[in-house]
Structures are given as C-alpha cells and as structure tokens.
C-alpha cells in the first residue's frame, strides 16, 4: 500500500448539499442554513443523495434559509427571533440546527450566540454546525456536514457518569426526537456487559443498516444502548463508542472529551471489517467474542458473488470517505483496486483501516480530478466509483460508473451489507454486459 499526496483540486460535492437530507432524516429537527444567496442556492440545487440524475428540488418545511443581506448585516438576536417565530409553525420541532459557515461569520453573525438565544426562547436544544470548520487533516469530503451534525448530536446526548456504570439498558424513552432508530419496541434485556455501547454514524445511509449492526452485536452478546443519530443515548465516562463511518473524527473527539472510549478498529464494512468491528467493540464492552467462524461462514456464503467480481479492476474516485473501507473489502473479496482517491485522509483516525489495506492498493490523497480522469483513461478499469462531477464525463468516455452514494444507500454495514455491496457490483457488471451485447 502506498499513500501519495497529489496536492490537487479534487472533485468533491459541497458538504452543504446534505442539509436537505438532514432535514428529512432527522425528524423533529429544524435545519436553518444561515448564509448568503449562494448557500441557499447550493442546498436547493443539490437535494438528497447526488446521482447523475439529480432528483428535482424538493421542499421540506423543516429546511429554511436565512439569507443575509451583505449590505446590511443583521443585528444581534434578529436571526434568533426570526427562527423562533418560524419554528413555531411546523409542529413537533424538537431541535434547531443552525448551519452557519464562513459567509455568516464574515457578515458578523455570532451563530453560537443566536443558537443560545433560540434555545432559550424555544426551550429546545439548538446547535451550530459549521460546514467550513477546518479539520485536523486538510481537505473536504462531501459527507462533512453529516459528520459535523453528528458531533453536535453527540454533544446533545445526556451526560453519563461513573455512578451510572451498572445501568446498561436504554435510557428512558422520551418519545419523538430521533425516535424509531433503535431500541423502540425492543424488549429490555438484563445487561450482559460491563459498558454500554453506543453506535456513532450511518447518517448518510438508511437507518436500517445501523439496526442490522446492532443485531449483529447482540448476536455476539453485546447490547447496543443507542445510536447517534437516533434516540439520543446517555454518553459519558465508561460508554463505549463504536464509529461506523471513516469521516467522524470530530464526533469521536467530542465523545472522547466526555470520557467515552472510542473503539479504534476497522469500520464495519465488508466481512473482515465487520468481524474485527464486532470483536473489538465486544472486547471493549467487556464481552469476549470470537467472530472467526462467523466470518468464515459468511465468506463461504458469498462465494458465488465473489466469483462474479474476482479480478475486476476498480478505480475509486469518490468523495465520501467511505471509499477506503470499501476498497479494503473489495480487494479482500478478490477485486483489483487500482487506486483509491481520498480528498481527505485522517491517517491517525483511520490507522487500522490504512494498515488493513492490501499491499497492492494505492491511496492518492487530494487527488486532482483531471489527473484522476487521465489515469482512468490509461488504466481502463472495469468500474469507476465516481464523484458526481466526474460521473457523466466518464460514462461518456465509455467507462462503467457507480456513485459512492449508491453503496451508502444500499446499506454497506455488517455482513448483510457486504452481500449488498457485492450484489450491487455484480448487478452493475451484468447490466453493462447485457447492454454491450446489443447490436445498436
């Protein structure tokens, strides 16, 4: 495995595009994008998960734009009062998220102050999410807004102290806010582990996949106390936090600051990734689990699917950050990974993932999109996992493309996710072969 830094300009969909998706996926949250015309237009133009055929703009009553006038920056407190008025209209608002980036700062908006004011006026939690806040390692990923939002949600989790250590069950149901992800309707079981486990991530994909992972952990004897996003669990000293997505450095740091133990392991993507994840999370929670035989049997079950992607050459030019674990899994499954583009690579946070990448995989940090296209033309891979800006031009040049969001939407976590990933790729190849066989 080699890591190169191309110092280029990667094709990354702006993280802000996720604002409308967040408003949909976090029921009860009112998302207010604070900025200029530019931010509002961006969010409106790129709704939901991007694909070459972007869905038409949709309007969500829980998404609003505070468009600032550059000539007349607002007085302090005005934003908060407007939001307080607006929040009263859609019923059941339980959280206000102020998405305020650099433009708002440049126009003198103190978003943290406004959020505090909103919280006081509405007696609801209000958090600021800054999509432009710098990360520890340079670069931008299209999933950064979700990551920042998750960090804010972790911050909102009720505190947990050492004295609560023995209470490992779910927190009392509050109903409404972020409910329905996990634990709802599940029978309470007496704790079998020393530390409660909280799952962190899965905001970009369907919530069902986090539930599957919880079931997987339960099979190994680990009960999941909650998930973020989800019904916010108590989080603090002694809590074991299991991170699902590779871009959640900030959220993991917030959890660590609270005294939680963040498990440093592989992401639960692919068979070996899930096995290591379950084993390490269980270990950290005080449960001894051995996933070797389970992993072996899953690999055997996937035999037929593996043979359909064996030897296929894959180029990752995605922008979500999930490409690294995905590449690791597909390389293990027998595919040939030509290159993995990483617009941002947090090498410390992702150390287990980077170490687990096979010896033949090259990672290019900050890849230049033109360079990527040239290398793709040269290598002629069987499939390219392409960012939205490259997708259509690559298809036009005769390449077979999939969007990284297709994998996220299919649900890539856990053993079932591994199957879905392989099925998705097998389906892609099958369809391409059928189309190519036609005499046009």
């Amino acid at each position, binding site marked *: 495995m080699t890591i190169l830094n191309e110092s280029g300009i990667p094709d990354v969909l702006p993280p802000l595009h996720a604002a409308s998706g967040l408003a949909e996926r976090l029921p009860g949250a009112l998302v207010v994008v604070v900025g200029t015309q530019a931010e509002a237009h*961006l969010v409106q133009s790129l709704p939901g998960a991007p694909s070459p055929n972007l869905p038409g703009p949709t309007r969500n009553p829980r998404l609003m734009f505070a468009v600032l006038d550059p000539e007349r920056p607002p007085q302090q407190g005005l934003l908060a009062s407007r939001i307080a008025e607006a929040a009263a209209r859609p019923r059941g608002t339980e959280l206000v998220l102020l998405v305020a980036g650099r433009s708002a700062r440049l126009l003198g908006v103190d978003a943290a102050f406004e959020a505090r004011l909103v919280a006081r006026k509405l007696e609801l939690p209000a958090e600021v999410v800054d999509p432009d806040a710098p990360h520890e390692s340079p670069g*931008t990923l299209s999933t950064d807004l979700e990551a920042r939002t998750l960090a804010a949600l972790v911050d909102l989790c009720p505190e947990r102290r050492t004295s609560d250590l023995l209470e490992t069950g779910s927190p009392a149901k509050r109903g409404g806010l972020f409910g329905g992800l996990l634990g709802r309707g599940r029978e309470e079981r007496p704790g079998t582990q020393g530390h409660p486990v909280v799952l962190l991530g899965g905001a970009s994909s369907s919530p069902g996949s986090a539930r599957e992972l919880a079931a997987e952990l339960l099979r190994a004897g680990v009960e999941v106390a909650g998930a973020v996003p989800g019904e916010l669990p108590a989080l603090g000293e002694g809590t074991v936090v299991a991170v699902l997505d590779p871009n959640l450095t900030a959220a993991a740091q917030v959890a660590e600051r609270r005294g939680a133990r963040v498990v440093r392991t592989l992401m639960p993507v692919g068979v070996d990734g899930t096995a290591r994840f379950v084993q390490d999370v269980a270990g950290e929670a005080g449960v001894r689990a051995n996933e070797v035989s389970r992993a072996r049997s899953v690999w055997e079950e996937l035999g037929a699917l593996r043979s359909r992607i064996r030897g296929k050459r894959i180029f990752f030019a995605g922008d979500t950050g999930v490409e690294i674990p995905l590449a690791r899994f597909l390389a293990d499954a027998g595919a040939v990974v030509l290159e993995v583009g990483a617009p941002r690579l947090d090498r410390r946070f992702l150390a287990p993932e980077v170490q687990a990448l096979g010896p033949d995989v090259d990672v290019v940090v900050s890849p230049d999109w033109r360079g990527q296209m040239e290398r793709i033309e040269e290598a002629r891979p069987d499939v390219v996992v392409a960012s939205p800006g490259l997708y259509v031009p690559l298809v036009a040049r005769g390449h077979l493309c999939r969007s990284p969001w297709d994998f996220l939407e299919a649900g890539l976590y856990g053993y079932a996710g591994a199957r879905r990933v392989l099925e998705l790729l097998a389906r892609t190849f099958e369809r391409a072969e059928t189309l190519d066989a036609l005499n046009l």
Partner: protein
Amino acid sequence: MRLLRGVYEGPGSHGILRVAASLRGVHAVLRALPGEGYFPALYGSRERVGEAAPVTLSPLGEEAKESPGDLARDLASVVRRHPRAETIVLARSEAALLSGENVPATSLAESLGTAKTPRLVTCSWEAPGMRETEAAELALEDLIRAHVRGRPERSPYPTVNLFGPPVFGPSAGAEYAEAERLLDLIGVEVNARVPLGAGAAELARLPRAWANVLLYREVGESATLYLQDEFGTGRVTTPMIGAAGTGAALRAVGELCDLDPKTVQRTIWTELAHTAKLPWYARLEPPEVLQGRRVAIFGDFTYPLGLGYALAREVGLEVAACGTYLTHLERDFLFHANTFTEGAFVEDDPAEVAARVEAASPDLVVGTHLEEEVADSLGVPFLPLCPPAKGTPFVGRPLMGYAGSSVLADALDGVLTRSRKEAAKDQGQP
C-alpha cells in the same frame, strides 16, 4: 436578513459560470471556499453532455497558502492544463468577495502548443449580493467587449445575432434552433448564437450582423446595448413567444434587415397555416373551455411576459397575476406586464409568491418548479414553463417561435381539457 423557504436565483458567480460554460473555448476559474464547487456536479446532471464542466476551483481557505489556493498560480495552472482555452474567466463566490481578497494583477502566460496568450476576464464589477441573472448579463457583455476588435464590415447579406438563454435554460438549444429556422425562412442568416455554443470567432464577428435578436433579454440586454452604442446594431426585443409575438419579432427583423414586408408577411402566413397551432387551438376549443379561466404566471422576464401576452390575447384566458423574481428589472417588467394584466408584481420570496398566486384564485398556474406546491395545494393544473425548471430532457422542446406556440397549445390542451372533464365528472355530468 430574510428567512426563506427557497430561492429562485443563484449567486452572481453562478451566473458567470453559466455564461462561461455556454461558450466554447472559455474556461472559468471559480475562486471560492473548497465546499462551494458544485457547478461540475450540476452541469453533469443538467446538461448530460459528457464533457467535463469547463470550471476549475481555486480554493480559498485559511490553510490554502500554497498551490492550489494561490489564485495567480491557479490561473497559470489552468492555462497550462487547458491549452485550447482562449479565454479565462474569473468568478468569485460571495464568500470570496466578502473575505475582501483583491484580484491579483496578473497576466496570463502563453499556453503551450498554441503559443497564444488567453484573454483574462476578471468580472471586477462582482459584488456580494448580486444575483445570478444580473451577473450573467454583465459577464456576457464583458466577454463580448474582450473579443470584439476593430470595426468589422457589415455582412454583405442580411444576418442577425441571436441572444438566447445560457446553459441550464429550459430547452435552450431548441429555442435557438426554432428562431434560426424562422429567420432562415424570411431569408436572414444567423451570424452568431450567443452565448450557447459561441466561440471566440463568433464573438469577434458579432458587429457584422445587421440586427440583434433578443430571445432571452435578461442575459442579452447589456451586450446588445453595447453593440448598439458602439456599432449601431439595432435590437429586436419582442419576446418570440406565441404566434403574435413571433410575428412581431419577425416583422421587426424584416424592417432592420431591409426586407420586403410582403415577403415576410407571406412567410408568416405560411407558418400560421402549417406550424403555429396556438391560434388554431384557440379557435377550435369551445369558448367555455377558455373564457373566464384565470391563470397565474410567475417566472423570470421573457417567459412570463411572452406567455402572459399570448395567454391573454391569443388564447383569451384571464391573467389574474403575473410576476417576476428579477427585482432588478422591476420597472421594465411592470411596464410590459401592465399591458395584459392588472395583477403584475415583483417578488423573490417563494412564500410571498405563493400567497399572491393563492390570492389570484387561478384555474391554472404557470411558473417555476417552486410554484408546483402552491398549484398542488390549490388543486389546479400546473405548467412548469418558466426557469428555473426541473427536468433535463434529452430532446428539448421550444416554447419560442411558431413551433413553440404549438408546444404551448399542446400543454394547455392537456391541462385545461383534462380539468374540464374532471369538473364535469364532479358535477355528475356524463
């Protein structure tokens, strides 16, 4: 500060990029935050043409001290990597403008291979708060000024320039094609289509034309005024929408190109007999279908005015409300809209627009994709005929010209006849 549910226009930089991406041989450099480069994704999904968007991001950021991030170096790198680019346009996002960064006094190097130095257009008039359409208009003027050299001679036979919509316009290519077809019928050649598909050569030869036909006035206004002031090229500003609008525009072109009015009129009659179906539709439908039916129209400038006039005068609908979101064209819009409606208005807040549309209690809403919701809530048919519109058809259908009038007739026939049938069903009639 305003709390909005949506916006009709993008920022100024988006308008500049739309114009730059419409032209050939132009590469744009967007100076913006690393998280603002959404144009390539949008270009891919809207245009679906297979070419990568001719836009390069120059990331502005605290940490971006070295290349990429250094604007002068990024400009040089674009020249190096895109040797066929004849013009480089610099657009700055609102965040970049607000950060107070100056445009570096830089001159571009020769591009390798062609040994030519590309022109640099910096759009120095950009200001935070400027909207997409106004910026597109000014950028087009700047680009034309940068390319027009000397005083080229007028073409020996009558020619015109077509100033139409830029990329992302609804069926933009089809609008140009229909106008060109009609001009060809009256014996006028198109000297250049601007901005869609025009290259440096076309921009340089714009003054050769006898007249400028403004298909899409919101973007072509400044440029054609410049050509009028500088070279005395006359303008045709009547929206080529509906049979009457198209006929008026063709007659005006005929006058400016010294054509025989009878020949022009003969062509118009032939087209009215064969292609233009809107007048035919208006005569064919029983009066009950159309008379007294109220329509609310909302959009940019050309489309609501053209459609408003056609629906009011040619079809006989009652235009209960007609509005635009282009606040900088308020006076012009109200002047024209007041000729066919008493409900002319200018508004750029979708919630207010929805309230105006509701208050007009229309039987039909013609608007942008943002008006779909209000039409749904009123339970009346909706026609998304004004930009910004959803959908990216592979085959564009024009709304302009005589063919466009037939497309309009089809659209009206679909929604009005259907709604009449539904109403009859509700009343228990067979």
